[in-house]
């Protein structure tokens, strides 16, 4: 197999890895906010559900969670899971990363001083105006370094989709390497993840830099 054929096969996997990455962030960043609110809820039941959710999803392997998400419909209801592979990958990743983001958001929200809420309250801001205009921008700045860590981990974690035989770049590299008894696919995959992460780190740094206008 020529290098160019190998590369073109692997590039399909790269696009899929980027797809997992982008969709996971798209869904888990907002879901994490909901989980964080649930975790900080005054309602004891909601709070405990969120606490258990976070604890279980952070306390068990993502690979296991992917398998559970994928196969559960079959074992529980004998559902046909034939066309469900990609959705299961995204769902599994989203549920897992939402748990991590929830804890990051919670820390970020709690680090905004009470005085900020009080100043806004006396000035007549509504609860939602206070949150979106006063609290959230400060939370974003506070949590960026922690979010950057998670995002970089996510780039590498996309390879775990191999557990569901989803044909992203790592799964394909493994298959091609085995079939061709050739080491090159692994090197290509490694370079891909590394370059991807360098780009991610660059973008996150730019965003952090943008937030540097205040302290």
């Amino acid at each position, binding site marked *: 197999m020529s290098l160019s054929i190998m590369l073109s096969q692997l590039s399909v996997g790269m696009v899929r890895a980027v797809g997992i990455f982008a969709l996971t962030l798209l869904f888990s960043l907002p879901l994490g906010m909901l989980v964080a609110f649930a975790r900080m809820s005054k309602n004891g039941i909601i709070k405990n559900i969120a606490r258990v959710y976070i604890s279980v999803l952070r306390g068990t392997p993502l690979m296991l969670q992917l398998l559970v998400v994928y196969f559960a419909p079959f074992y529980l209801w004998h559902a046909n899971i034939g066309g469900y592979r990609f959705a299961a990958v995204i769902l599994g990743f989203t549920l897992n990363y939402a748990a991590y983001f929830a804890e990051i958001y919670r820390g970020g929200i709690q680090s905004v001083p009470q005085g900020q809420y009080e100043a806004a309250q006396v000035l007549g801001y509504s609860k939602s105006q206070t949150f979106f205009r006063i609290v959230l921008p400060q939370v974003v700045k506070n949590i960026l370094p922690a979010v950057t860590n998670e995002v970089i981990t996510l780039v590498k974690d996309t390879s775990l989709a191999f557990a569901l035989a989803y044909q992203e770049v790592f799964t394909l590299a493994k298959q091609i390497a085995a079939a061709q008894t050739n080491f090159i696919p692994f090197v290509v995959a490694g370079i891909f993840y590394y370059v991807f992460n360098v780009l991610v780190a660059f973008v996150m740094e730019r965003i952090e830099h943008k937030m540097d206008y*205040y302290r």
Partner: protein
Amino acid sequence: MKILEINNSRKHFGDLEVLKDISLSVEKNQVVSIIGPSGSGKSTLLRCATLLETLDGGDLIYLGDYAAKADENGNAVYAAPEELKKIKMNFGLVFQNFNLFPHYSVLKNVMEAPVLVQKRNKDEVKEEAMELLRKMGLEDKADAYPFQLSGGQQQRVSIARALAMKPNILFFDEPTSALDPELTGEILKVIKDLAAEHMTMVIVTHEMAFARDVSDYIIFMDGGVIVEEGTPDQVINHPTQERTKLFLSRFKND
């Protein structure tokens, strides 16, 4: 005309009775200072007056509108949220720690609430905000961020922010306590200027000489009660209560 009236207010935190039957009223254009040892309930009184805390008992009235009204048992019953939102526009509060919004420029700190909350015309508000900043000697800081300012400058911004809402009464909770001693003077001067313009104010302060000079009326609180009150001459120069004398003796060198 009474701007603020508080009758028989009570407030407790757990087992601690922080306000025990406190009453006070503030007339238009009046400057009232509240003095007293730390822990006597001064901040709690201001926080209840500004709806940051809820009273257990008593009345809280702004210009005849009841924010809270005592029922037959003396328990405070609060008005509906919509009514409280309107009542809130009567007052402003200047905090000890400024509590400026760090992610906003000085100008935006001052402008946002009038535009967002009071739905006033943005250009008009901007003109007024710049005028307020000029008055505070901060016209060249409009585009600066709070972290770039000294404590005294930050406190002046927070006073401008409160004034931009055109409150009928302005509360100050130890406005100079978080400042380096050499910066307190500039804030006290701003408050004196406001008094000269007949701004109605309630000021919690440990600056006795300032309180004596600026106030029409002084309240000495200790242990959640008003121990002594009257004109500055009565309370500071000729106190009758032992607790007042003892407290003031600590400020003799003022």
